């Protein structure tokens, strides 16, 4: 047995790791060639990447931006002596605006652009709660009515009167709640705006417009198309389905059997059928279900079905958020004397919705991608437009360039959204105690 006693006289300084551990070699050794299996994987991957790039890059490199038709492209490519052909970008040059905006009148395209920019401004205070002042939420509220008006145009009175709906609902709530109780109040608050929107807004707006004409040019929704259509269907459906989804989620969490089963039935039905069948309902059946003489245009009908579709998914997301709240929150609200609706509005939903934002973003991404299905029922979303563009004798036979362009657009938007949602999820996880 030795004498253990040992004291270090002076401390050792930090040293550089051996060369094989750091720098390029160390990195390579650790990350690519640690062990024979990894080395094989690395080699296989490199070969694979090379093969893919070798197949695609020469095709991609093709100076055909100026070509006016497929045959012109073919001439240019043939002149360059390319073996495997080359991309024909002329079609993108000529049609990119159509792919983005559909048939929206050219001189009015600032409106969807403005709406799109506004969307970010409106979302900022919701999505980045810390970085933006809460006051901006006012703009978010106003945006809900401003955006449809910008997109569709028409008299300014319509959005203003539509916006008056919630206010009327609130007044009705106050009135009825005092006279007949909160529940009746809530029902009134739901019914009054709907009746107002359905019955009164049109005539009243018309009347005011005839007295004080003020508005912007009307754009029919059939002119909506391309990428703008996808975005717009997605945004409208998600925005409205948030409200519906919250109601459904509350219904599903409710103790009231019938309410619960109705909600469950609706949610499971919608989630159980493919979106395409719902779109077929929109295109072939919805008008049959409506009172005789009603005629929504197809884009509105698709929006209705997309909203119903999204609301079932949002309901499940919100339900997750509700379930994540500890019971104590409900009890504390009860003990303070808040009734069900106040407790939901002031205590439960603000928290549950915040937890649900990543889920809502994912639902939006899913829905946004799914909007491409509208091409199957003949709407001219980007994929639908490829058909029309290829029906142009100039571009008959073009495939990859169009699909590639569309895929790129979708990839860029969905990828950035999903990154945001991941970031948010991480943030919420650390924030949430």
């Amino acid at each position: 047995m030795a004498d253990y006693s040992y004291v270090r006289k002076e401390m050792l300084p930090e040293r550089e790791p051996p060369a094989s551990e750091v720098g390029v070699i160390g990195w390579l050794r650790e990350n690519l060639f640690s062990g024979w299996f990894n080395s094989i994987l690395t080699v296989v991957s490199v070969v694979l990447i090379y093969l893919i790039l070798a197949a695609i890059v020469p095709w991609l490199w093709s100076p055909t931006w100026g070509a006016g038709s497929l045959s012109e492209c073919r001439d240019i490519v043939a002149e360059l002596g390319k073996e495997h052909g080359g991309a024909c970008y002329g079609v993108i040059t000529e049609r990119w605006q159509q792919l983005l905006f559909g048939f929206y009148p050219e001189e009015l395209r600032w409106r969807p652009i403005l709406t799109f920019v506004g969307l970010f401004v409106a979302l900022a205070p919701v999505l980045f709660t810390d970085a933006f002042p809460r006051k901006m939420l006012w703009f978010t509220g106003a945006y809900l009515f401003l955006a449809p008006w910008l997109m569709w145009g028409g008299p300014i009175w319509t959005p203003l009167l539509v916006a008056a709906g919630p206010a009327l609902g609130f007044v009705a709530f106050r009135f009825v709640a005092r006279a007949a109780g909160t529940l009746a109040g809530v029902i009134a608050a739901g019914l009054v705006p709907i009746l107002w929107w359905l019955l009164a807004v049109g005539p009243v707006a018309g009347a005011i417009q005839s007295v004080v004409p003020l508005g912007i040019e009307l754009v029919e929704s059939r002119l909506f198309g391309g990428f703008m259509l996808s975005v717009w269907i997605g945004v409208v459906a998600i925005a409205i389905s948030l409200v519906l989804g919250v109601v459904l989620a509350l219904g599903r969490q409710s103790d009231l059997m019938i309410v619960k089963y109705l909600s469950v039935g609706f949610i499971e039905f919608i989630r159980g059928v493919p979106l395409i069948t719902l779109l077929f309902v929109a295109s072939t059946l919805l008008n049959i279900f409506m009172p005789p003489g009603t005629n929504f245009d197809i884009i509105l009908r698709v929006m209705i079905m997309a909203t119903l579709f999204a609301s079932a998914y949002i309901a499940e997301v919100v339900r997750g958020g509700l379930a994540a709240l500890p019971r104590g929150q409900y009890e504390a609200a009860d003990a303070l004397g808040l009734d069900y609706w106040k407790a939901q509005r002031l205590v439960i939903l603000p928290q549950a919705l915040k937890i649900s934002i990543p889920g809502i973003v994912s639902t939006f991404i899913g829905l946004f991608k799914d909007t491409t299905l509208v091409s199957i029922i003949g709407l001219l979303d980007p994929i639908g437009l490829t058909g029309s563009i290829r029906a142009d004798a100039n571009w008959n036979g073009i495939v990859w360039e169009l699909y590639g362009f569309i895929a790129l657009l979708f990839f860029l938007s969905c990828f950035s959204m999903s990154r945001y949602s991941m970031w948010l999820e991480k943030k919420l996880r650390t924030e949430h105690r």
Partner: protein
Amino acid sequence: MSTLEIEPTVDTSKMQISDEVAIQIADMNKWFGTFHVLRDIDLTVYRGERIVICGPSGSGKSTLIRCINRLEEHQAGQIVVDGTELNSDLKNVDKVRSEVGMVFQHFNLFPHLTVLENCTLAPIWVRKVPRKEAVERAMHFLEKVKIPEQADKYPGQLSGGQQQRVAIARSLCMMPRIMLFDEPTSALDPEMIKEVLDTMIELAEEGMTMICVTHEMGFAQAVANRVIFMADGQIVEQNEPKEFFNNPKSERTKQFLSQIIGH
């Protein structure tokens, strides 16, 4: 359980008990499914009384006080709070809840609201107090629980003891005439227990009617004017604190007390 040494400065003389009945529970029974959790509870609480309830875990203490503000529904017998009977009439429930404040073991503050907003929420939306007045009132009670400087923080930024004091202030803002406490200190680190108990003692000195489930025997001895011992869903023994601790009558009580103190 740490039996806290309460300084003898507690001024029990101020704690007046009137003859007025604050809570009257008669023959009350409650079941969870088929499990008989409260059995034939009879209890009269006078205005200004400070009652401590103790007993082994699962004996129904929490359930009893949760029945008093209808967080749980009883199935037989009567509970009358401040002259209002708790029955299926929801108006009565609302009335009782606005008279009775409750503080939970796990605080249950609203994490998305600041301390001040936590305190003003119910006064504004339930009592329809103007916001300015509600804020003043909240600041008043936050001062009382000695954390006015935290008003603009979020609950997550506070220590457990501070959170529990906010919870007390939040209840007080509704100006309740009765306060219920369900083990308000048992989720706290030892250093923080005292600050919360101090707040509660202060409340008692001001004559608040209080029912408190706790195992802090020091607190019970210093403040309570009655200690109730529950076991198996029944009130087994009740007495003045001194008598209760020094001279327990029932075997169950003796056994329980020996455990608590021996621990």
